[in-house]
């Protein structure tokens, strides 16, 4: 296989929270299904399935996706079978690389309980907290509405899963303050960034098409800035992402300060193996190893 051959020529490994990942690429949560895992093999340094929640969620009624210029807006509504069924199926995601599990709840207590449940399973290498969902105890504001909210939820999760690597996934709005708060509350790494709140309208029908989160190449410059700003603020490593579509994009995120790079929407329109191959080409031309890129802007 072409990718494997290339991968042996350049050093793609990176260290994250004590783990050694074969490549710095990780799928962004919610963008890689079991059915598509074939594409993930040999490409991703870890696997990160869609966010799971305490109870099963049916998700939002369709339409759930709308195309936008160089991107898309989605409103899936965290459809998932609930944490218990999710954990039963977890072996399906075993490709011989670490599995990170993304969790989300409606209350701080939900989050903490999920972390405890998930951390108790040896198959789980790390936990990512999806903080972009509404906190029902705070009038629908999300868990990353501000530093206080972030501190509370991350602190509770830290206590519930004291030894498992814990990533806090943030949106770009107020990201620097929230990053500082998450680090202070004990997050081992930060995922930057989730989708940007957005709206699409069907002018012909004069109705809202999809109200949700914007992702894809369109958001890349916003995500790069968020990663760059956060990297200059915190000590913990960053899983960067938002619009990554090519190997050069991977390099840009690492240069901005990311240790690991998440590939989401782009995997709908490209084979992630091509992205890794391009990134390997970049490293070969630059004459360096992946691990040396993080923050290496002149």
């Amino acid at each position: 296989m072409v990718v494997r051959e290339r991968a042996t020529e350049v050093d793609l490994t990176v260290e994250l929270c004590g783990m050694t990942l074969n490549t710095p690429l990780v799928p962004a949560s919610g963008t890689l299904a079991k059915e598509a895992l074939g594409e993930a093999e040999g490409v991703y340094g870890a696997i990160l399935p869609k966010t799971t929640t305490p109870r099963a969620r049916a998700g939002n009624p369709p339409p759930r996706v709308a195309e936008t210029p160089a991107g898309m807006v989605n409103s899936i509504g965290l459809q998932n079978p609930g944490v218990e069924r999710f954990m039963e199926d977890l072996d399906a995601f075993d490709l011989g690389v670490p599995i990170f599990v993304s969790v989300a709840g409606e209350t701080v207590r939900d989050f903490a309980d999920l972390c405890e449940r998930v951390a108790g399973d040896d198959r789980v290498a790390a936990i990512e907290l999806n903080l972009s969902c509404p906190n029902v105890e705070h009038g629908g504001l999300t868990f990353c509405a501000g530093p206080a909210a972030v501190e509370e939820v991350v602190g509770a999760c830290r206590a519930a899963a004291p030894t498992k690597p814990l990533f806090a996934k943030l949106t770009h709005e107020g990201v620097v303050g929230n990053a500082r708060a998450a680090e202070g509350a004990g997050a081992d790494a930060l995922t930057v960034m989730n989708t940007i709140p957005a709206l699409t309208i069907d002018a012909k029908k004069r109705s809202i098409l999809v109200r949700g989160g914007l992702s894809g190449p369109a958001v890349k410059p916003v995500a790069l800035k968020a990663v760059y700003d956060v990297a200059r603020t915190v000590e913990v490593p960053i899983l960067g992402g938002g619009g990554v579509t090519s190997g050069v994009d991977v390099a840009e995120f690492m240069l901005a300060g990311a240790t690991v790079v998440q590939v989401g929407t782009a995997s709908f329109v490209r084979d992630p193996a091509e992205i890794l191959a391009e990134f390997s080409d970049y490293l070969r031309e630059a004459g360096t190893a992946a691990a040396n890129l993080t923050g290496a802007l002149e």
Partner: protein
Amino acid sequence: MKFYTVEIEARRRLGAYTLLSYRWPGDGIEAGRFVMARAAGYPVTLDPFLARPFSFYDFEGGVASLLFEVRGRGTALLDRARETIEVTAPLGKGFEIDASTGRAALLGGGIGVAPLKILGRELASRGIDHDVFLGFLDAKTAAVADDFPGASVATMDGSAGTRGTVLDAAPDLLGYPAVYACGPNAMLAAVKGAAGQDGLRQLSVEERMGCGNGSCNGCVVPVDGGYVRSCVEGPVFRAEVLAW
């Protein structure tokens, strides 16, 4: 999702639609399955961003064909493509064919005619007799029916065939052991009602798709107790499964 650049083998107009064919060396092409297709993608352009789903129209001698209607930018670009397009491998679950079911009714609404050609071919090869009923807006879109010899046609404006919907062109569907339909969701719901619950009733649905391989959860249809992804659990569903 992996895309393959394929050379355009032939292209022609079929009434208001475009028929575009390309050589497909692999297997997996079956009635009701589909591809994600686009005129060009990265690195040429990042917009339009998503590929578009199309049912297989036919597959013969290693040549696959798509029949499509130009609706927006994605299909306009496919219509302009001259040398190559990009397609995925065949996706989704197609029509179930059970040789024991006996006579089948095939119903198509507008561009929903697309998967019926290859379905008819597969039924014929399994020795299953079938009748084809096609509904269109007008004579212009109905012109594609020439490619379905013996099909009964209806048009909303009466400019070709019976005036009315595809159901006006069809006899009582309850008598058919197997009913296959593709078209707008409203038509599919009507077919579901008219065809009753006895026998094999299958509907090919059309939902907006992000990925086509189950990853985005974008293309769901309602079923009892929630939603399922039409790109991996469909696009063909047994009528009784759909909570319409």
